[in-house]
């Protein structure tokens, strides 16, 4: 089992805060790895919202190859965060040459391209780098997207955070997701570490996805290059979210109708029954069947949490206007937002999608039995 923590805050906070929350929930993960996703960045990145940021881990040779590759494409470095690592690495954390967080300036000839076009290009560059890196074992690339930073490493979350000195002032964000891993894959591959990222969407999951293989086969046959990797059975939650929003054009309210469709009378009585029935049939291969709690971040800066149909995983949302947190356990929430009205804490059940929107004023509960918003 893993532990999840996410926060959305009006004022930028340090990722170390989220790692602290994971540390409180230490009993639920084994310190075998940590993943961080930062969006709506503060500090120096606040002024460069449109600049794509590359996050990853590189060897010295990898950096050289990266530089020449990006230069060829016409990308110029705009800003970067340099990590000064202590001489000794903590136990269980591998020694790396470079942890990279680098904002780029788009090539000049890209000017005037639509956001969709840019999105496609950024993804294909990320996939290309990933492939190059896998061939020579010299680059690991997590994300390449405006206003998004990702950090992943093997080891205990808080130890890694301190080792990388993540409480530095120039690394803050208004939306942060963090996952502490319970290793189930033995050989730890950083590409199997949550959160997963695809074209501005990111999710992380607690639990096992028992329908992984048929879902993977379905996604792989969609002909979309971003549905790849599959190092972790949880990665498909990001892909399905992407498919729901990008290919089917729905909002987040429809996500649960894809992964955990209604059954029986609930479906028959739903105001959108004809649509949902058809959706359930055509998207049948994306139905998840595991015990899963999914937390995700959307491009509009909302955070959401959904549970599987059986609600077998813990998960709670709480906070106060201006700051809300999503946590596997209440103790994680208590550690970060102790002064909230706990009566308003909400634990999403099998029909709920809990959303905190970009205004961060309230927890919006979307029940699966509610009518779907009109599609545009």
């Amino acid at each position, binding site marked *: 089992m893993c532990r999840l923590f996410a926060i959305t805050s009006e004022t930028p906070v340090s990722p170390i805060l989220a790692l602290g929350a994971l540390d409180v929930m230490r009993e639920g993960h084994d310190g075998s790895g940590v993943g961080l996703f930062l969006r709506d960045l503060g500090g120096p990145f606040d002024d460069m919202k449109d600049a794509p940021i590359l996050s990853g881990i590189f060897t010295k040779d990898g950096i050289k190859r990266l530089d020449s590759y990006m230069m060829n494409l016409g990308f110029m470095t705009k800003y970067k965060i340099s990590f000064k690592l202590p001489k000794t690495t903590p136990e269980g954390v591998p020694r790396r040459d470079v942890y990279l967080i680098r904002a780029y300036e788009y090539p000049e000839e890209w000017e005037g391209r639509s956001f969709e076009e840019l999105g496609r290009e950024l993804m294909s560059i990320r996939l290309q780098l990933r492939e190059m890196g896998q061939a020579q074992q010299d680059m690991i690339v997590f994300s390449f997207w405006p206003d998004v930073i990702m950090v992943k490493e093997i080891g205990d979350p808080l130890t890694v955070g301190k080792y990388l000195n993540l409480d530095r002032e120039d690394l803050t964000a208004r939306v942060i997701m963090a996952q502490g891993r*319970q290793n189930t894959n033995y050989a730890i591959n950083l590409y199997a570490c949550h959160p997963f990222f695809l074209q501005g969407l990111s999710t992380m999951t607690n*639990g*096992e996805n*028992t329908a992984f*293989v048929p879902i993977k086969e379905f996604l792989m*046959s969609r002909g979309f290059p971003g549905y790849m990797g599959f190092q972790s059975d949880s990665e498909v939650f990001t892909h399905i979210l992407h498919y729901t929003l990008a290919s*089917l054009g729905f909002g987040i309210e429809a996500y649960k109708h894809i992964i955990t469709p209604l059954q029986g009378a609930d479906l028959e009585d739903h105001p959108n029954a004809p649509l949902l029935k058809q*959706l359930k*049939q055509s998207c049948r*291969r994306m139905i998840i069947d595991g015990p899963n709690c999914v937390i995700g971040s959307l491009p509009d800066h909302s955070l959401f949490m959904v549970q599987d149909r059986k609600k077998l995983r813990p998960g709670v949302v709480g906070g106060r206007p201006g700051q809300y947190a999503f946590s596997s356990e209440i103790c994680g929430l208590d550690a970060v937002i102790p002064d909230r009205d706990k009566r308003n804490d909400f634990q999403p059940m099998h029909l709920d999608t809990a959303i905190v929107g970009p205004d961060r004023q309230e927890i919006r509960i979307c029940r699966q039995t509610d009518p779907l918003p009109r599609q545009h």
Partner: protein
Amino acid sequence: MPSNRPITPSTLSIKDLPWQIHWNKDKCTLCGSCTAVCPVNAIELGVFRKRTVETALGIEGSASSVFKVYHGIRQRTDAAYACVGCAMCTQVCPNDAIMPYRSDEAPKLPYHINQGGQPRRRGGRRNVPGGILDQIKFLRISMLTDPALDAGRHEFEVRTLLGRVLPPEESLKHFNENGWVPPVREIYPLIIGSMSFGALSPPMWEGLQMGVAYLNEELKMPVRMCTGEGGCPPRLLRSRFLQYVILQIASGYFGWDEIIHAIPEMKVDPCAIEIKYGQGAKPGDGGLLMWNKVNQLIAAIRGVPVGVSLPSPPTHQTQYSIEESVAKMIQSMSMAWGFRVPVYPKISATSTALAVLNNLTRNGFAAGLAIDGEDGGTGAAYDVSMNSMGHPIASNIRDCYLNLAALGKQNEIPLFAGGGAGKTGNLAANAAALIMLGASGVQIGKYIMQAAAGCLGSETDRCNICNVGLCPKGITSQDPRLYRRLNPEDVAQRVVDVYLSFDTELKKIIAPLGRSTSLPIGMSDALGINDFNAAERLKIQYVI
């Protein structure tokens, strides 16, 4: 055998027969029940002569020979009357005095069941026991990280789809534009496969229908049954129960005159139309209802004269090219019901199944594909077709599924697997294995005859005389003296028993795999087998 009689090449002794009748003189009361019940007249009243030597007790007097006559049961040895091992004689004997035993020697009978140049024909199944399905295990047991589910208490949705499912984007587009969306039925994944009215006796057919109706209406299990090629009784065509029925059309078109004429009077649409192009038991050969079974009722429903053999041609006579014919038939059948009823072909498993499938993927009206493996059963066929023709179902289904997955159409064209599920009684395990190999559902025939009506047949050539209308259980006979042995209500009850227990067993398989809300179609990571080559071929795990 008297010494002065010639022995013909086909003169057999009891030892040469596959089944030998052991009869116990001490227990027999000569009631005649066994000889009366024997479907093939394999036994008859015998008069035996016996000599006893009696020695004198005293010094005087001499020993003498006494000849006595006694009566008993004699087994006949001509090929035409060879015992089929059905053991009905055992069942009716009040004193347990008689029982068939399998010969301990390779029987010589098979070399002689072609008198007059007529090769052996029979009903039943392939005479080859066992199969790969029983070797498949379910390995991916959910343990600590994803606790196994509770088969008894969690909510389960054990349902499958029959019909062409549009890809999500297209489906939405059609929805938003009010376009035509192909009909899709949500049904139970275990289907009673095509056994015709004619092949089956009236009480058997009625019993199955009643069981299916009860499962649907009282237990809310959407179980479906296919008619086979024999038409459908007129009252059923005009009743609400038609929605639980898949109507089959095959190359003989038997009964379709009646069906077409009933369309305007139908209260509900049938579940689906199955176009039979082939059958697992006798691939590439047409249906066969022998004259013995074509009585007045059957003749009326099929629209044929009484007492003639009804062989269907191996192919649909209307076809010029198969692609065209399949497309046209699917389309015209769809049109007959206003495009509200799914229409799909059924073929026998074959190494050319992929070609058929590729064709179907391009035909927007094709609602699925049913594939019947070599272990499928039949009411009548040539022995050689049954034993040696056809393709095993497991690899055929797997190939088709993986082919669909490569095309991205694995959710669009459901595959239904038949032939061999439950061959040795492990119905739920076999069906689950087929589903995880890629089948959307499983068709059964022989299993339901065995479990719901007590069919005696086996893969080691027991009984299997379904073709000649002498079924000792009244399952495949059209003779009222035989079929009155079967009570339709009892059959219906057994159908319900079978489905309820199957449902529990299926849940006992999928719950530990962590699955409950959707049928684990293609969940091949759960499967393993202890045969390396089979594992490679099926692309599942090899385990020892």
